[in-house]
């Protein structure tokens, strides 16, 4: 039926395709493990355990594709959440789901496609939940109270408030004293008159954040294909570039980027480069003064 030459070409093509699939998987796997080294997590015995498992996966290429490595990381990440209950941050949970997604994908016939699907659904659900909290469940997000408070009272945002909001050092200090809980609060101090630039900044930050989160959630949950699927990646990259320049939770940003990167098709080299660039950018963000706060 088939000539031997044709069969040989098909075999070569299949091998090449498999190699390219493995490239995406390897890249995402290695960057996930690298994240544990760049940002060590866990306390006590968990921290060396994470480092050991991540180091093993980076040094031994066979371990990277072994589901036991990822199951080990899942158990460690889950243990971290339980040990810290209820104080664990949301990205500690997400890390656990991502390691589990990797372990599950490596047990399936087409690991790259399986991981891409996990990444897509995890991003969609995370952004959907974040949007529901902001729009429906929270009593003080849409009216701007949340951003007004966090920009005035959270030390991590002091430099941003000064730079973009146009507040002086004295105004920030006065606001901080007025917003402390009863007992610590200076009873005599009230909130100073805030510049209109600050009010505008609060409005923009409030609506920009929730609109972008809703858009990312929808794009990843809806079955988009072809060029419209590029919107999903574009919005996720914009979200990471604009959010983590302000919010000091780089670990969360890296996880989202890795989930996005996992969805790159083997021939989407430019998209992969874009994800890698933003991954590196988040590392640089940590060195920015206003991200450090204070």
């Amino acid at each position, binding site marked *: 039926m088939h000539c031997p030459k044709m069969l040989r070409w098909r075999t070569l093509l299949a091998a090449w395709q498999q190699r390219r699939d493995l490239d995406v998987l390897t890249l995402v796997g290695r960057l996930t493990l690298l994240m544990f080294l760049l940002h060590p997590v866990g306390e006590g015995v968990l921290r060396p355990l994470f480092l050991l498992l991540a180091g093993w996966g980076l040094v031994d290429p066979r371990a990277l594709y072994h589901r036991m490595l990822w199951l080990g990381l899942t158990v460690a990440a889950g243990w971290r959440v339980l040990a810290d209950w209820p104080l664990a941050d949301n990205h500690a949970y997400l890390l656990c789901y991502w390691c589990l997604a990797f372990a599950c994908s490596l047990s399936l016939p087409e690991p790259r496609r399986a991981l891409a699907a996990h990444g897509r659904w995890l991003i969609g*659900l995370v952004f959907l939940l974040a949007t529901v909290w902001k729009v429906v469940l929270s009593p003080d997000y849409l009216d701007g109270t949340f951003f007004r408070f966090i920009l005035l009272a959270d030390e991590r945002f002091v430099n941003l408030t000064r730079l973009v909001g146009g507040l002086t050092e004295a105004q920030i200090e006065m606001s901080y004293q*007025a917003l402390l809980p009863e007992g610590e609060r200076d009873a005599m101090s009230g909130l100073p008159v805030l510049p209109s630039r600050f009010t505008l900044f609060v409005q923009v930050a409030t609506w920009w954040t929730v609109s972008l989160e809703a858009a990312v959630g929808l794009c990843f949950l809806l079955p988009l294909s072809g060029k419209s699927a590029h919107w999903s990646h574009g919005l996720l990259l914009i979200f990471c570039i604009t959010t983590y320049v302000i919010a000091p939770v780089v670990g969360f940003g890296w996880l989202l980027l890795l989930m996005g990167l996992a969805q790159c098709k083997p021939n989407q080299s430019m998209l992969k480069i874009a994800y890698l660039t933003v991954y590196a950018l988040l590392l640089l963000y940590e060195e920015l003064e206003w991200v450090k706060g204070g």
Partner: protein
Amino acid sequence: MVPSMVSRRYAVVLRTLPCALLLIVAGHQWFLVYTTQLTPWLGGGFGMFSTVDDGVNRYLRVYLLEAQGPRGVQIPREFESHGERVQALPHVSAMRRFAAILAPYFIAQNRRFSALRVEVWRTMYTTEQMRPIDRLIRSIDWQTHHALP
């Protein structure tokens, strides 16, 4: 036929497990927020950066109920991390456990009190003026006779 059915089911589980887990945890977080006043920032429901009801806006107050009336006391440093968990998730049983840990500390200091009161408070803010409004979330009185052998 049976093995292929099993492997197909196994594949479905592998394809859905992480997201199913995420949804179960998020549902549990919603339940705790509405029943036990868990702060929306925590618990794996992705409610971070959506409300001021977190961290600095939650605080604990501890009183020794003495013959002269309630006397406020400072939470000793070694119990602060336990206190953080209680103020994030002020479940009655967690508050009782916290009181049971604190009471022997004050008894050892020869303080005389019939009960130890633990209160969890939350500060919210008015929209425009950002005027703080402090609200009691939950309060428990833990009788010291529980501490007696």
